């Protein structure tokens, strides 16, 4: 992870900027602020922040437009902030290239966890290789030998189940939308519907979770997608 990451906060509410300014500065982040979408885009071009926190309800442009414009020329991680009940907007934003989301009101602890995940992924992408063995609590996945263990016990997964698991591992801690998962597992031309995913996910959970109704590893974000619990 970079030292003193530079964070751009695009948010029109002064009070929210104020408490984020206070808490993020305390944790060693440098904060840039913009009240408008257009101002935010300019700041990304000028300052090259390491992460963007973007409010979906901006006064000038809507957040979705900002993400699309930004993704035209930058791979900076984007975490969106929005209210509950706007799941469809979140999915659009995530599919347009945002990395993760947080539902308002949120706690700063939660925000920092998401930011750490996003920043880690950003540096990993540059290194590409990553660890050959992925561990999350009792779950251990040997990515080279394609072996999955829960505790000491080996688990047999079908190729699709394995591909779903590795896709989630690739984005570990971040939400992966249904569409992203379908695309990455079955390829970009996939015509499968979301409920196919649910069928495989059920099978996967039964194989790796102790109680599939209270999962430890593969979590569901209703209306949005899935995420692997963060370590």
């Amino acid at each position, binding site marked *: 992870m970079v030292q003193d990451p530079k964070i751009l906060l695009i948010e029109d509410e002064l009070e929210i900027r104020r408490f984020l300014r206070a808490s993020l500065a305390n944790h060693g982040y440098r904060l840039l602020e913009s009240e408008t979408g257009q101002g935010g885009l300019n700041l990304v071009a000028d300052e090259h922040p390491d992460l963007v926190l973007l409010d979906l309800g901006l006064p000038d442009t809507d957040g979705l437009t900002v993400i699309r414009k930004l993704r035209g020329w930058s791979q900076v991680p984007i975490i969106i902030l929005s209210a509950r*009940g706007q799941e469809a907007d979140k999915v659009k934003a995530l599919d347009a290239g945002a990395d993760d989301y947080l539902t308002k009101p949120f706690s700063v602890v939660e925000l920092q966890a998401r930011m750490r995940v996003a920043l880690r992924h950003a540096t990993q992408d540059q290194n590409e290789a990553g660890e050959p063995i992925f561990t999350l609590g009792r779950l251990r996945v040997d990515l080279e030998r394609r072996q999955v263990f829960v505790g000491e016990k080996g688990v047999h997964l*079908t190729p699709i189940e394995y591909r779903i698991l590795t896709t989630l591992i690739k984005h570990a801690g971040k939400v992966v939308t249904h569409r992203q998962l379908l695309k990455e597992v079955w390829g970009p031309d996939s015509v499968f519907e979301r*409920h*196919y995913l649910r069928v495989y996910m*059920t099978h996967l*959970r039964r194989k790796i979770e102790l*109680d599939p*109704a*209270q999962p430890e590893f593969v979590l569901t974000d209703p*209306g949005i997608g899935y995420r692997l619990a963060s370590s």
Partner: protein
Amino acid sequence: MDDRRRDPDALLLRVQAEEAKKSRGKLKIFFGAAPGVGKTYTMLEAGREQAREGIDVLVGYIEPHVRPETQALVLGLDVLARKEVPYRGTKLVEFDLEAALAKRPQLILVDELAHTNAPGMTHAKRWQDVIQLLEAGISVYTTLNVQHLESLRDVIAQITGISVAETVPDSVFEEADELELVDLPADGLLERMREGKVYVPHQAERAIQNFFSKGNLIALRELALRKAAERVGAEMEDYREEHGAAGVWPVNERLLVCVGPSPFSAKLVRATRRIAGSLKAPWIAVHVETPADSRLSEKDRAQLSQTLNLVEQLGGETATLSGHSLADELIHYARSRNVTKIIVGKPSRPRWKEWLQGSLVYELTRKCGDIDIYVITGDSEKRSATTAVEPIRSSSTTNAYLLSLLTVLACTLVSWPLSYFLAATNLIMVYLLGVVAIATRFGRGPSILASVLSVAAFDFFFIPPFLTFAVHDTQYVFTFAVMLATALTISTLTTRVTFQAESARARERRTASLYAISHQLAAARTPEQIAQAAVRHVAEAVDAKVAILLASDDEGRLAVIGAEAEGFDPGPHDEAVARWVFDHGEIAGHGTTTLPGSAGLYLPLSASHGTVGVLGVLPNRAWRPIEPERLHLLETLSGLIALAVERVQLAAEAARIRVQMETEKLRSSLLSAVSHDLRTPLSVIMGATSTLLDSVDRIEPQLRRELLGSILEEAGHLNRLVANLLDMTRLEAGALEVHKEWQSLEEIVGAALGRTSQQLKDHPVVTHLQPELPFVPMDDLLIEQVLANLVENAAKYSPPGTPIELTAFANDTILTVEVADRGPGVPHTDLERVFEKFYRAANSRGRPGAGLGLAICRGIIELHGGQIEAENRPGGGTVFRFTLPLATTQPEVPPAETSTET
């Protein structure tokens, strides 16, 4: 003191009358003896005076041919444009009532109260226009000559020899608020005539010249002065009554006048009106239907109907009785109504007829007891001869006569063989039988023919010499005479019996239909049911097509109610007529003097709180004109219908108010719940933060942490409360969309438990999900919300450490999910109510929440077509159970994977 106290009923009537008058405009009549005395001039002057005092005065209508001095007075006043009405190639100018109503002046001047409007105007008469203006709250100045008063019509005709067609009902004259007599001695008027100051229409010059003789003018002036004096007398009496002055109170008189189909009856009616007016007594006009009435010609019937209409116009009551004896019926009815005076016309029949049939006057005077009898002279007008002798069934007149001929023929054929065994005189019986048959079937005319033919046939065939009309034995002449008399008597009696039976049947039908309709109306629960019952019964009772029109929306638009009104297809203007009736609460349309050009007759459905609708009647051709009797029946029926409609409307109103009150109660409980639940966390947050702000450095780090922790916790409560309120609002506004997809319950349970992990930290959660649960079409976000609310609720109401169990199982058609706790349970009576909005358990004090969570659950589950219920568990605690319908199919399983293992 007591005997000077005013009659409370009279007092009440006065108060009511004054209330009505307050909103009504004031009517002032400039009253004169003849044209030319200067009424219009005086009226305009008075109008100018009012205008000077700042009253908004409009000149509504002034005769176009007034002289220049009068014309000059109009200058400077607002003048309403006259309405031009095309009439038979020429144009008539009329007073524009609608424009006047639209302008709404305070005072309007309208000349010639007695004027008859052109066909096609709203009202037949101008005085009706004036009444509508008054009702709209506009005061009216108008002019009237004495000869136009309805009750003076006959007197005027006697004086001047001219029968006046344009008349004004006396009630309008009497109810005027002010009367100004414009008086000019006869010589003065004649002088002005000579000077050309009185406009005389060219074509009427000669008639007018006769009219303006000095003798006539003096007589008319006397009449006008007397009328004005009578009014002053009446005013004096009113004053006395108002001020409780002791005086002679008139005894309660009631007059009854007997009318028939003679044109003379109209004169009788007017005379009665005059007497009643001077006695201030109510009066009734009675027509007694006797068997003879079945023979009345169409013209006579029309005359009778016209007379009865006149009675109603003059403010009298009408009644139709039926019976055999005129005098008995009259006396009987008079006693039942406490009548003090009976007025009859002087008989104009020849004396022998009177002697034969009895005299009404004689009979009445003999039987009347303490009732006074007034006999009024007739005039040269003869009762129009009963021209057409109509049988009971007029449609088959020719056939009936033909059949009587055939019957006599048949009697002869039957008698022929019998004549060998029987004496000729016995054969008469056969013929008499035939006459009875004809009289029963076809009434008087054919039976008389049959009687005559029978005698002729009897003579021709059975009396020697046979086959000639000659008679040898003169004693047979006596036989013929008796036979003819007997036959005629039988035919008369039979006709009478048939008529009475028929009128009894008609009355019975009427009574039965009244009974049936009131019975059905009482049972009706909706306006549609009322309309259905009413349309059917009214149509039956009066033989017409009928529709009920009720105000259908808030703007009071009228609409035909009920599908039964089929065939009610009135003319294009009838809608406006119905509208008028609804607005004014008065009858109008065909057969009345208001908007008579319309196809239908419209009666207001007047109930105690105003007009609730309109009864439309499309008369059959057969009963034109509308007789008062039928009109009465219609009025009675419309009264019944109006009451039923009002009852239903009031019931609906009461129900609406009840709902409103419930809503109000809910709203106030929302306010108290929400304000409490919003304020509690806010107080904590504000208190803690202000403490921290005030002395952040002096507070122990441990305490600081605790304060901050409670701020966070309370903020969390607020957040959930606001979320619930938003969800509830969305649910109630119908804005919550359900996006159903194939979902795995297991996945949603996992998400819900994950989201509520903070609230569940003190409770172990046990899940029993049936293996291989089917996929369910549902909205994952909403069902997650339901599950989260249920487990949150369970955690909130059960003691820490007790487990929360989540169970799910499915059969072929439904998925059942249960959330069970070991809390205190719900009172048995409240198991239903827990899902109501703002329901708070008795033991919930101190626990945050507005009683919305479970209501939201129910809303969401119902949107999914499922059910939700609460039940107390054996061993303590509550179980909340919801079901979701399963689809008949399961989602298509993805294609099998090629390689199996890794």
